[in-house]
Each structure stands twice: as structure tokens, then as C-alpha cells.
């Protein structure tokens, strides 16, 4: 039984994801360690994003999607009937590939989610202003926007927008942050900032990041999961282990081929 004290934050058991009749992800068993950065890598089309989205039930927004198996979080299968997906998504946040800030001010972008989920200030508790500043600092954005909090979130550059999206995710105090190729739409400098951020955030949050950039995975993550796909185009987990091990002494030949660039 997983509790908040255990080492494992999220655990997938026999996870299968279908879109209609097509099986996109097959028999995944994966244990994500708390407060570490786990990277999910693999060639395109092998279901990495699908696996990530099944961790916060975002797949359900597609009408034909169906999941089988279990995803355990906080001692429960998040797909249980009694579990409210809205609450799951608050605790397991997500940052998307293309930055998608709201059409609101920078301040409102951060404050909105917190307010929605019942943020209340009080004695000994931070006020909304303090909380917004705290989140923007944690997202390494505060210095750049502190003088223009009322400007639209869309007026920022791509890299800044992405950090804004991270800040608003932090504002609802999740335990896990899922990142779906967060830097692939950004320039190299912005990318480096995001990578730095990931390592800092891992001190407080569990980070799971999908990336097609192997070097990024090697730089940033503590654990790496390598996915591939068969002829039936269903993605499956090939190998999972500490990053250093995966990249130096991979156990599986396919892993080695991918890492050395022989395919993918």
C-alpha cells in the first residue's frame, strides 16, 4: 500500500491504454520514485505522452480513450470509481509541450488555479500576493516579470510563457509535476533554463518528464524509462533504471541501439 511516506510516488500496474480498438500502450509496470526526476524516452509514436497523460487522467478528455490496469497514487488507484479526476489533476500537475497561458494577466495566470482550489489567506498563512511571488520565484520568472504583473501572459516570450505555466502549476501545490516535452518548442537558452528548473523543483516535487532529447534526459534525470513499440504499434516499456546505468550499461540491446543512435 502506497502512503505519503513511501519512496514511490506513482506506480503503474499492468497499464493498457486504448483509443477505440487501437491499443496505444501495452502492459506497463512502472514505479516512479518520489522527489526525483524520471525521464521517459523513446522513438516518436511509442506512447510516451499517452503514458504521461494517464498519470493525471488527461487521456479521458479524448472521447474514445479507455484505460485498463491501475495507477496507484496516495494509496489508491486513481481510476477507481470514487476518485474525482478533478482532484487528481490538482495534485498531479501538468506542463504542456506548447506553452498555453491563459488570456489573463501574469498575476491572474498564477492566482487563478490557486483561488479556484480554495486558496485562503489568514494568520500565519501567505496572502495571495505573497504566494504568487513565491511561485514565480520558484519558476525562476519573478525578476523578469515583477514590474509587469498586470500585463497579459501572452506578452511574454516563449520561454517565459513556459515558466509562467510552471508557476501556475506550482500555485496549486501539487505533489507530482508531469512535463510533456516542455522545452521542445523553445530555443536552446530557454531550454537550458527549463532544465535547470527541473533539477531545482525536484527538491520539493516529483518530476516526470517526457523528452525526445536523449542528452536532455541524461543531463536532467535520476531515473530513465525507455519505451519502444512493436509491429502492432503498441508502446511498451523496454527498460527502466537509474539514468547513469541506462546510459552506460544498458541491459537491453534495443536500449543500447537507441542510445547510441542506431535507430530512433
Amino acid at each position, binding site marked *: 500500500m502506497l502512503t505519503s511516506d513511501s519512496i514511490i510516488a506513482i506506480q503503474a500496474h499492468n497499464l493498457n491504454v486504448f483509443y477505440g480498438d487501437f491499443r496505444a500502450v501495452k502492459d506497463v509496470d512502472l514505479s516512479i520514485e518520489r522527489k526525483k526526476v524520471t525521464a521517459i524516452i523513446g522513438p516518436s509514436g511509442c506512447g510516451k505522452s499517452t503514458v504521461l497523460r494517464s498519470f493525471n487522467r488527461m487521456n479521458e478528455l479524448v472521447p474514445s480513450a479507455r484505460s485498463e490496469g491501475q495507477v496507484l497514487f496516495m494509496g489508491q488507484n486513481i481510476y477507481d470509481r470514487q476518485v*474525482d479526476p478533478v482532484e487528481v489533476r490538482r495534485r498531479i500537475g501538468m506542463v504542456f509541450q506548447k506553452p498555453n497561458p491563459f488570456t489573463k494577466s501574469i498575476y491572474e495566470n498564477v492566482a487563478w488555479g490557486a483561488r479556484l482550489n480554495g486558496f485562503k489567506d489568514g494568520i500565519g498563512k501567505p496572502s495571495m500576493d505573497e504566494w504568487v511571488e513565491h511561485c514565480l520565484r520558484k519558476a525562476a520568472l519573478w525578476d523578469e516579470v515583477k514590474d509587469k504583473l498586470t500585463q497579459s501572459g501572452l506578452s511574454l516570450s516563449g520561454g517565459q510563457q513556459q515558466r509562467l505555466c510552471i508557476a501556475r502549476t506550482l500555485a496549486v501545490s501539487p505533489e507530482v509535476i508531469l512535463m510533456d516535452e516542455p522545452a521542445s518548442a523553445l530555443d536552446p537558452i530557454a531550454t537550458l533554463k527549463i532544465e535547470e528548473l527541473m533539477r531545482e523543483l525536484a527538491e520539493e516535487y516529483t518530476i516526470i518528464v517526457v523528452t525526445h532529447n536523449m542528452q536532455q534526459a541524461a543531463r536532467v534525470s535520476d531515473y530513465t524509462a525507455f519505451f519502444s513499440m512493436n509491429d502492432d504499434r503498441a508502446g511498451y516499456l523496454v527498460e527502466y533504471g537509474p539514468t547513469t546505468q541506462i546510459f552506460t550499461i544498458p541491459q537491453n540491446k534495443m536500449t543500447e541501439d537507441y542510445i547510441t543512435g542506431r535507430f530512433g
Partner: protein
Amino acid sequence: MSTPTGRIRLTPHFESNLPSRNRKASLWQVLFRLSTTIGMIVLALLLYTVVNQAFGLVAIDNKVDPASFAVDGVQIEELDQETLIAVIEENVSKGKFRQLEREQPLAERTWEEVYQVVIDDVVEPKDIVGTWPLVESLTRKEEILAEVEQEHPQATVEFTSWIDPQFVTSPQSSDVLEAGVRTALLGSLLIIAITIVVALPIGIGAAIYLEEYASDNWLNRTIQTNINNLAGVPSIIYGMLGLAIFVRMLEPLTSGAIFGLTDPTTANGRTILSAGLTLAILVLPVLIINVQEAIRAVPNSLREGSYGLGGTQWQTIWHHVLPNAMPGILTGAILSISRAIGETAPLVVIGAATYITFDPDSPFSKFTTLPIQIYQWTSRAQGEYHNIAAAAILVLLMLLLSLNATAILLRNRYSRK
């Protein structure tokens, strides 16, 4: 580059509010769904109102007591044929008498036939003393019969369907029981024919120009904006334009004076031609916009294939773009026609005739249309006019329904090709 992330562990206070948020979400979902049913409810109410008035009981009474036609104390049953004919001539309108003579001269008929004419047209000109809608007729039949028995003992009560084949084929009449929509229907059809002939070529031509030929310069952008604006102008303004230009300014043309074909009863421009032209100008903007969309939907690869083989611009359009856009063009055309059929205000402004009994037979005839007929009957105070208005509405709705059904059929057939 790296900023202090704040070693201070700020723990914010989140008050658990999920249940109330979920409750609110469910409540509003119900409200949204409810509002969609209002649309369906209104449609149902409207159809119910119309159908309710189009069928029902009617109480018909004789206007006059047969005894009042006695000549020299002799009752009509005993009068001879000549005197009967005199009675008819005295008590029937000139037009009606002429009509009777035309059908068959009264002197050549048998006594029984002449007597029947007396009964039909002199003694029993029908007068409606009451009408009841369908639902009431079905549920309160006994009470209604009793009421009528009391107030108009001579009257007969019968169930009638105000809409029947006779209704469609009869011309206008001031007698509610005789009135039909033939004049109006023919007027509508003739006018629409003119509208189609004028609006379709210009509309499609304009759309082709704007989508295929027009470069992005000031003039063409103005034309496009202008069309968009015209689409939003109230239809009555088009009526006023038609009045000023087609009826008044171009009167020699639209009244047929140039061709010497004027309608003998009016020598002015309030003719079918004017009406058709006005409606054409009215539907043009919306038609152009719809056809533009249809042409825009044709993939560029099709055009490129034609150009690549050395086709000219017009060849490409005529042989490839237009056939491909045909379903959309047809749909747009039929939508515009539907709209034109239902238009009332502009034609009233132009001057639809209020009472014509003869069928329109040329573009230079006076005109009335189905919607205008409905308007006139609805505006009358007497309740029985509402019944035939309802019947006319049903005819109009059926016309529109079949038009749109044809549109859908044609569109399916064309897209399968």
C-alpha cells in the same frame, strides 16, 4: 541567471471546496441543458398553435330567412322559373350572376337546378358565427354544440380542415369559406422565378470574381466589406429601394408601358417584375457570401492540377472549381430562395395588391404573395380569418420544407458524384 528559489517553505492554506464546486458544476450543467430544450419547446408551441387553428369546428348559419324571398306572398318553393331567375338576379352580385350565366344560362336549366341555385346562392349565403380550434373541438364538442344550439338554432356545426386541396386551388375571396391561396401562391412562384433568374448569375459571378480573380487591393476589399454590410441591412430598406427605383423611377419598364403590355387595372410599377427585382437585390449579398464559402472550400490542389496542364483561369474555374463547389453553391442558392419566399415587409412597401381575384399571368400583373396573404388575414379582427391564415401558414411551411428537402437531396447526390 539563477534566481533564489526561496528556501522558505511556504505552506499555503487551501480550503477544501471540491464538493461545493462539483455541485455548482452539476447545477449549471442542468441549466445549460434546460436552455437547449427551450428551443425545442418553442418550435413545438409554434407548430401546435398553427395546427390548432388550421382544423376545427365551424358553425355556419344562414344569413337570411328563406321566407323573406317570397314574391307577392308566394313562397319560393312555389314560384316559377322566370320569377326565380328574377329573384336570383336581384339578390346576387352582378359578378356572380354573370358567372352563373357563363356556366350555363339560367333559362336553359331545369326548374330544379334553378331552385337549387336559389337555395345555394340566395337563401343560404353562408355566414360563419363561430370557429373553434382543434383541441377545443375535440375535447369540448358537446359544450360547443350546446352553445351553438342556443344562440344560433339555424346553424350547422361541422368539422372542417381549413387546409385542403380546394384551399390551395381557390383564388382570393372575401368569403372565408371560399377563400384560397391560389392567387398568392402563383404570385409567390412567379416572383421567385424572376428572383432566381436575376440573382443567381450575378451572385455566382460576383463570388467567382471575389474568390478567383480579385487581387488584394483597395477596391476589392471595399467591395467585400460592402457586401458584408449589405447582408446586415434590414429587409424593409430594400423594399424602400425597390419602391423608389423599380416602382417609381423605372415605371415605364416595370409596368410594361414600354412594351404596351400594361395591366388594364393599374398602369403603375407595382408589378411582379418590380417585386422579383427587389427580392433579387435583397438576397444577393447573402447569396454571394454563401457561394464564396463554397468556392473557398475547393482545395487548391485541384486548381493547380488544371493550371499545371496549361489551362486558363476561366477554364479552370468552369471545368474544375465550379463543379466541385456545386453542392455548396446549390445549398446557398436554395437557402436564399427560402429566405426570399418568406419575405413580407419589402413587398408590402413596394405595394402588394390587397385584393385581386384573377391569377397573375404576366410579369406586369399586380401581385400578392403567400406571406402577404397571411399577413392580411392575420391582421383582420374576425377570428375566422385566423383559421385560414393558419391554413396558409401550413401551405407556406410545406413549400419551404419541400424546398429544403430538395436541397438536401441534391446536395447528397452531388457530393456522391
